[in-house]
C-alpha cells in the first residue's frame, strides 16, 4: 500500500525475558496507519499504550513480531540507522511537555534540526520561527522553556515535533496535563497540522471527547487491540 506509513504485525513485548518475573505487556498487536491519518489510541492505564507508542517511536524494540515504517523493516536496521530514521520520520510530543530547560522556545524547536545538521544556521532559525508562528508563539520565541505556561510549552513541543517535517507524530497524552481550554487548543493545533501538511498522528489519550474527533479510534486493553 503506497500510502501506508506504519504497519505492526503480531508485535509482542515482554520484560525480564528469561527470568521468573517475565511479563508480556503486548500480545500480538496488528496495526496499520496510513499517511495523513489521525489515530487515537485509548485504553485504561497499564494497558500497554505507552509501550506500544515507544515501539512505534523506535525508542524500544518489540520482543517478537514485525514493525515496518514507510515499508522499511526495522529488524534489519542498526542503531545508527534507527536513530536516523527516528530523527527524520517521527516527531514526539510527550505528556509533560519535556522541553530542555537550558534553552529558549526557539532553540528547543531548532534542536532536532541542529542535531541533524551539526551547526546552527539562519535557515534553521527561520524554520523554528515559522513553526512557532504556526503554533501562535512567535512572541515567546526568546523565552526560556521554564518561563512559559504548560499550554505554551506543549505548543512549543508540537512545533519541535514538526521541525524535521516528519511523516508521523506520536503524541503521548499531550493534553493530559492541561486545562480544558489549553487541551482543546493543542488538539486543534495538531489537527490543523494534520489537515494542512498531511502528517500522520498517533495520539494516546484518555480524553474520549478528543478521541472522538480523530479519524479512527483503537482501544488497547490488557496488551491487545480490542476490535
Amino acid at each position: 500500500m503506497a500510502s501506508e506509513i506504519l504497519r505492526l504485525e503480531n508485535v509482542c513485548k515482554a520484560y525480564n525475558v528469561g527470568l521468573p518475573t517475565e511479563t508480556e505487556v503486548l500480545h500480538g498487536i496488528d496495526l496499520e496507519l496510513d499517511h495523513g491519518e489521525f489515530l487515537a489510541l485509548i485504553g485504561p492505564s497499564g494497558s500497554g499504550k505507552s509501550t506500544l507508542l515507544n515501539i512505534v517511536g523506535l525508542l524500544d524494540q518489540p520482543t517478537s513480531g514485525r514493525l515496518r515504517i514507510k515499508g522499511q523493516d526495522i529488524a534489519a536496521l542498526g542503531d545508527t540507522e534507527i536513530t536516523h530514521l527516528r530523527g527524520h520520520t517521527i516527531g514526539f510530543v510527550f505528556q509533560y511537555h519535556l522541553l530542555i530547560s537550558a534553552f529558549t522556545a526557539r532553540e528547543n524547536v531548532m534542536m532536532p534540526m541542529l542535531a541533524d545538521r551539526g551547526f546552527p544556521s539562519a535557515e534553521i532559525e527561520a524554520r523554528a520561527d515559522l513553526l512557532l508562528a504556526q503554533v501562535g508563539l512567535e512572541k515567546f520565541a526568546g523565552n526560556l522553556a521554564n518561563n512559559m505556561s504548560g499550554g505554551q510549552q506543549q505548543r512549543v513541543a508540537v512545533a519541535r515535533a514538526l521541525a524535521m517535517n516528519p511523516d508521523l507524530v506520536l503524541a503521548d497524552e499531550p493534553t493530559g496535563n492541561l486545562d480544558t481550554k489549553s487541551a482543546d487548543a493543542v488538539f486543534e493545533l495538531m489537527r490543523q497540522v494534520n489537515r494542512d501538511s498531511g502528517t500522520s498522528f498517533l495520539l494516546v489519550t484518555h480524553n474520549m471527547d478528543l478521541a472522538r474527533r480523530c479519524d479512527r479510534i483503537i482501544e488497547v486493553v490488557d496488551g491487545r487491540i480490542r476490535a
Partner: protein
Amino acid sequence: MNRWLPFEWTMAVRFLREGRLQTIFIIGGISIGVGVIVFMSAMLAGLQANFIKRVLTSQPQIQLLTPDQVARPLRNSAGEIEDAVVQRPSQRVISIDQWPKIRAQMQAMPEIVAVSPTILGSVLAVRGDASRSVNLSGVEPDSYFKIVKVPDYIVAGEPRLTSEDIIIGVELAKDLGASVGDKLNVRAASGATRVLTVSSLVDLGNKSVNQRVCYVALRTAQSLLGMIGGITTIDITVGDIYAAEEIAQRIQAANVVEADSWIKTNAQFFTAVQAQQNTNTLIRLFVGLSVAFGIAAVLVVSVIQRSKDIGILRAMGTSRGQILRVFLVQGGLLGFVGSLFGAAMGAFALVYWHSVARQADGTELFPLILERSLFVYTALLATVTGLLAAMAPAVRAAKLDPVVAIRG
C-alpha cells in the same frame, strides 16, 4: 545561539551554564589543583635551578683523572699457584698520559660544551709569619672559567691570571691578612717557591673551601709542582647535566683515564634533586587524580540530573555518539577553564611567595622561573584529565535507554 559552535558544544556550554553553582564549585576545585601544580612545579624548578647553579658552576661536571696506580706481582710460569699479599702502592702525583690528545677527543664530542686541563696539588701559602696549607689549582683561565665561573664569585679584584697572579679564597685572605695586590709566597713540598700577586678574592659559598682555594695559571702550577707540561685532571662541562654519568662512563671505557661525574661525586646532592623531582611528580599525580575524580563526580550527577533531557534528545534523533561528545566536551571545558584560573592563581601565589620568602642575607630564596611551557603543559594536562574523567559519565549518558530516561 552561536553559529560557530557545533551542536555538542552548544549543548555542553548550556548545560554547564545552567548548573551554574555546580560548575563554579568544580572549576574552583580544578583551579586550586592546577594552582598547586603550577606553584609547586615553578617553585621546585626555581629551587632546583638555584641548587644546580650553585653546585655546578663551582665545580666541573666531569673530571678526568689518572687511573689508580696498582702493583702487579711478577708471575712464574702459567698455571702456577702463588700465595702473596700485594700491597697497594702510594699514589704518586703523575700527569695524565697524552692529555693533549684526550683533550682534542673531548672537544670533538658533541655532548661536551667545554674542556679545560688543570693541575691540582697541595702547597704552602706564606705571608709574613702566617702560613696555610692550601689546594693549588693551575688552570687555563679562558677555558676553565667556562667550567667554573670563578669571575662570578669574585668579591674583590679582577679575574686576572697571568703567570705572576694568584686568586685566593676570602677566608684564606683573612687568615693570611692579605688583600688584592699583596704578594704571597707559595712553596711546594719539593721546595720550589714562587712569589705571586693576589689579583682577586673569591667566595665560593663554603667556609672551608674559601680557606683553601687558590687559582694560578697552568704553567705557574706546573713549574711549582715539578710537572712541566703535565696535568692531573681534565675538567669538562656537558650540555645535559643529567647525562654526565653516562658520558663519563663512555669516556672511561674509551681512554686510559678515570672519569668522575658530578652525579657520582655529589651522590647525596643528586639524590636530593631526584627526591625533589619524584615528590613533585607524586604531588602532580595525586592532585591530578583528585581533579579527575571531582570532574567525574560532577558529571555523573549531571548525567542523572539531565537524564530526561538526554531521553528527549535521543527521541529527537540525537545519536549516542553526539550524547557522548556533549559530556566529553563538558569534561574538557571544565579542565581547560579550571586550568586557566589555576595557572593564574599559581603564578600569583608564586610571585607573592617569591617576594616574601628570603634567605638570611636578604637575597631571593629561589629564582622566579615562570616558563610559558609550564602553563601550556598544565592547560593541556588539565584538559586531557577532564576528557578522561568525563569518559565514564559520558558513556553512561550515551548508553541511557531513552524510554527509561524520559520516564525519569
